[in-house]
């Protein structure tokens, strides 16, 4: 009798944990914004002088990382005419808020000085310009690698933010599977 009571309690606890986990999972899924595609606009740097190679590297790395991490949405480039007809399109606008160009030589020699850092204000909006999410995200290179590695660091962080907040639709997944050459 004593054992039966113990088993019953364990079973109840296990069932409760299962229910809680499934509820939490469902809640997490519903909190994500549906987006079948993300359009990345060219990086703007009106107030801060950003060298052209940094601007292009930020943009290209951003597209590459979003394509790699977000396998359930399609990524469109700035000016792509095909993105005009997509209803749940998310537009990513990035504006440079801070930039400090370090020196690879100083990093190599001192290991404490010469860091390169970029701070970019990222704004995810819908098709009509309504802001869905905005964050200040920075990219850094402290030790090894060229200055442009900071743009890669930034792109990785943005892709993670997008992955946490946006989910692709099934339609987009099917579309991507159809486009895959494998």
């Amino acid at each position, binding site marked *: 009798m004593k054992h039966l009571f113990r088993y019953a309690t364990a079973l109840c606890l296990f069932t409760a944990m299962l229910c809680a986990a499934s509820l939490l999972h469902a809640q997490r899924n519903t909190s994500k914004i549906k987006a079948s595609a993300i359009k990345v606009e060219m990086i703007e740097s009106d107030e801060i002088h950003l060298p052209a190679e940094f601007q292009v590297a930020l943009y290209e790395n951003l597209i590459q990382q979003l394509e790699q991490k977000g396998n359930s949405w399609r990524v469109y480039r*700035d000016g792509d005419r095909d993105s005009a007809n997509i209803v749940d399109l998310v537009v990513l606008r990035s504006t440079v808020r801070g930039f400090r160009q370090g020196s690879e*030589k100083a990093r190599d020699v001192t290991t404490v000085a010469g860091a390169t850092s970029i701070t970019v204000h990222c704004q995810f909006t819908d098709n009509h310009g309504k802001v869905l999410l905005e964050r200040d995200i920075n990219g850094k290179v402290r030790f090894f690698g060229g200055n442009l590695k900071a743009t890669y660091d930034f792109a990785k962080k943005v892709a993670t933010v997008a992955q946490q907040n946006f989910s692709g639709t099934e339609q987009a997944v099917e579309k991507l599977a159809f486009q895959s050459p494998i």
Partner: protein
Amino acid sequence: MLKAMSLVLICLSALPIFCQSTSGYQLGTITAVAPHQNAAGSDPSVASYDVSVKVGDTVYVVLYTPPLDSGTVKYAAGRDLLVLVGEKTITFNDQLGTSSEVPILSRTKVATQSNPAPESPQQQTPIKSAALVGLPGVKENTEGTLAVEGDKLHFSCSKGASDIAVSVMDDVVTGDDSQRVIRGTLGTISRFGPYGSGTFLSLFRSKVDTLTIQYRDADGGLHGVVFTVPAGMAESLKKELIPQGAHTSIPIQTETGTD
């Protein structure tokens, strides 16, 4: 007496110089013969020919009307003849020794070994380069060669090649930077060398130029590519791209480095 004889002999030896022809006749070659398009109002029964004669490094096109309308001139291409080139006419002697003067319609300079044609941008030698980011079909930091070939910028490496049409380039910007002389896997290993040797090796650096290009694809999508080329080469590449239709936001004269 002896002196006078010597003087006479010297004068006699110089005489052939004055006997040589000073007429200016040169050897010419007929390179092409084409029927002349008669102008309105001219007699269509009279057959005339545009004869191209190459003299030195110039090709002259002359209007030749055969006296007997034999038509044999049509087969004269390749024949050599002596010609006297005037300002507006060319004088030549036919096989019977009769001198004829024909009007020059046009004259064109052609490339010869002594006068080579200016090298076109299409024949530019490839520059050692690295595609840092953004080039379709090429991995990041891939080393290869970069060259302007016709109306496109061609990057080739051991694992493939990629082209960007010059006409779709929205912005071409150059900059400068520096990089470690010892790079790649060896460079990474060398960083951990004992007694600060890795740090010492980091001091050896080479200057490089960056060439940043923005262009649009067929759907209007914006792309960006960053190349590194040896110091001083980015500007020359840009100077080749701009006349062929590429655009730039920074004019060549006022551009400054970004490092």
